[in-house]
């Protein structure tokens, strides 16, 4: 069966309903803090037992796509990234919502996610085997330098003070070392607490730093009365917005696809790197973090492009590169389908149906995104004395839902209060999150590299050399620009 024939299979009422229904459910799951694509897919997995493989897989793929996109809603409207890949979206989405442009921000996220998703699927269809071979060349040394490359985003998220940015990232990395050391079983900063043995999960920290800290800040804003943001205007995209989408789409998609292919990297790291790239290549980098549409486009395009990328190692090698991909692997195995090169020759119809269905799932985002761009921002019209406790309640439930742990709720509360003060002192929450996400990736892979073959591969492997060069460019370019600006100002 060709790809075109597969579209005939997908374009039936039942299939379309399953894909669109799956993506709607995914958007809800993604928008709720603490609930992840993995959790949503795990919940729906038993339902797929009774479906033909193609239907079950496509529903799960719709859910996966929707959940990655859904995180943008709470990131934009409430400053709580509903899903980890939306952390960078909140940096510009929330300021846009504060300006009364929540609808426009959702529309930007919708178009970016759809285009990124389509690019990811096209890459999956055309160059999956090449990408899979590339992913196999990534060992601990390459992941170490990839983490350093990700950390170079520090320049993009630091705000005005680079020293504070570095302090925030260092604090985040330090927090990521809490718990039992994976290599030696030595307890680090656990203070005898059993809960701390497994480390600090970054999701309650994200919810606290972004969500609860903002609630506290809003309570202290005595000047504001009534609703949090009065006017909700600009629902749809202007011509200049579309130009920004077209400009930002290609680099963000490429980053999303390449990072998505790497097992263990995923949408969060893709959006961090893409956001950094967008800041560095912008003529007005100072606008990022204050409600720049380019920031939303970079983040959302990359994280949805990573969905197609994540399917590459799963389908071509049978290696699930992320937790949602592991659920998909489970769903395939339940139907006696073993992913890998053989699946392409034994089940070409199914593979083509998956490709076609995944492509249709991206268009479902367009439908749901535009349908809700006008309605969803109405949540901001709720009075602040109702809205702020409701956000706090969502923070509590979201932190608890992650592992059904009261300890995580405590972590969220402490992060919220600390985040409020750190923000006031100029330490941006994004820097702490950056360190918390990339810290374990850096430390674990660096130590693995040293254990296996010493430090040398980190500097000599061809992929590492390329990544070091890119890191140097990402750090030095903005520094040179800053120096040039200072020189111009002094003249």
């Amino acid at each position, binding site marked *: 069966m060709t790809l075109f024939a597969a579209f005939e299979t997908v374009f039936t009422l039942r299939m379309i309903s399953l894909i669109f229904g799956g993506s709607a459910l995914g958007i809800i799951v993604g928008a709720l803090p603490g609930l992840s694509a993995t959790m949503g897919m795990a919940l729906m997995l038993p339902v797929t037992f009774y479906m033909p493989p193609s239907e079950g897989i496509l529903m799960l793929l719709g859910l996966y796509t929707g959940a990655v996109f859904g995180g943008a809603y709470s990131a934009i409207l409430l400053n709580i990234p509903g899903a980890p890949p939306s952390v960078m979206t909140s940096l510009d989405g929330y300021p846009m919502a504060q300006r009364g442009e929540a609808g426009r921000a959702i529309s930007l996220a919708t178009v970016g996610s759809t285009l990124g998703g389509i690019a990811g699927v096209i890459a999956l269809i055309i160059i999956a085997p090449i990408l899979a071979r590339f992913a196999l060349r990534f060992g601990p040394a390459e992941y170490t330098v990839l983490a350093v490359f990700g950390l170079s985003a520090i320049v993009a998220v630091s705000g005005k*003070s680079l020293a504070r940015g570095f302090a925030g990232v260092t604090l985040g990395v330090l927090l990521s070392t809490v718990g039992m050391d994976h290599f030696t079983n030595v307890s*680090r900063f656990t203070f005898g607490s059993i809960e701390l043995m497994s480390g600090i999960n970054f999701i309650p920290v994200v919810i606290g730093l972004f969500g*609860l800290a903002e609630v506290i800040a809003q309570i*202290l*804003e005595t000047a504001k009365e009534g609703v949090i943001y009065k006017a909700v205007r600009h629902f749809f995209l202007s011509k200049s917005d579309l130009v920004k989408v077209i400009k930002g789409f290609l680099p963000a998609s490429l980053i999303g696809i390449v990072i998505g292919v790497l097992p263990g990297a995923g949408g969060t790291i893709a959006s961090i790197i893409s956001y950094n790239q967008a800041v560095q290549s912008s003529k007005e980098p100072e606008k990022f973090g204050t409600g720049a549409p380019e920031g939303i486009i970079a983040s959302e395009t990359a994280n949805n492009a990573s969905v197609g990328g994540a399917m590459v190692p799963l389908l071509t090698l049978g290696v699930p590169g992320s937790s949602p991909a592991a659920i998909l692997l489970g769903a395939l195995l339940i139907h006696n389908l073993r992913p890998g090169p053989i699946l392409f020759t034994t089940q070409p119809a199914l593979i083509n149906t998956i490709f076609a269905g995944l492509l249709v799932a991206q268009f479902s985002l367009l439908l749901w995104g535009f349908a809700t761009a006008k309605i969803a921002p109405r949540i901001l019209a709720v009075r602040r004395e109702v809205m702020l406790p409701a956000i706090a309640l969502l923070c509590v439930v979201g932190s608890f839902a992650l592992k*059904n742990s009261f300890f995580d709720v405590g972590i969220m509360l402490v992060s919220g209060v600390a985040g409020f003060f750190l923000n006031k002192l*100029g330490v941006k929450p994004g820097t702490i999150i950056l360190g918390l996400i990339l810290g374990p990736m850096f430390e674990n892979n660096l130590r693995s590299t040293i254990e296996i073959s*010493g430090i040398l591969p980190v500097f000599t492997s061809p992929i590492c050399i390329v990544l070091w060069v890119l890191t140097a460019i990402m750090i030095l370019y903005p520094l040179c620009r800053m120096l040039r600006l200072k020189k111009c100002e002094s003249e």
Partner: protein
Amino acid sequence: MLTKNPSTALGSATILFSVGVLFLVSGFSDAAESFRALSPKVFPEFMGYALLFLGAVIFLQGVRSAPAPLFDPLPSSGAVLRAVAFILLTGGHLALLPKIGFLAASVLFMASSQLLLGERRLFITLLRTGLLVFATHYLFSTMLRVPLPRGPWGF
């Protein structure tokens, strides 16, 4: 010379925090160091020193720059009290969750925090609280199967 600047406060706090980190790192078990290429101390220790250095840099930046307030404009004492009370209410919510369950603890939290933030219509507050808490419970517990905590009376 100390100036009233957020940077001096942040720098001082960072230095103190990093000293605490380095002290804690010195107490890590070194039993594994003989058979591992890299000790579990190395990474946190490096981060501790990095934080110490950055704290010193931020402190010096604060000393060199002009005095500036942490809050601009300064919030009213009423707003500060409300914020502190709200944090305490959220802490109370967390403390009550395992004891009286999600529904009862959340109803108490939502109603009291709305009243704290200036809502004066008691009936509307209670009605809205009930709707919000039950909707959240239904969404998470029933639809998404998150086992929210139950109280001694079974809900």
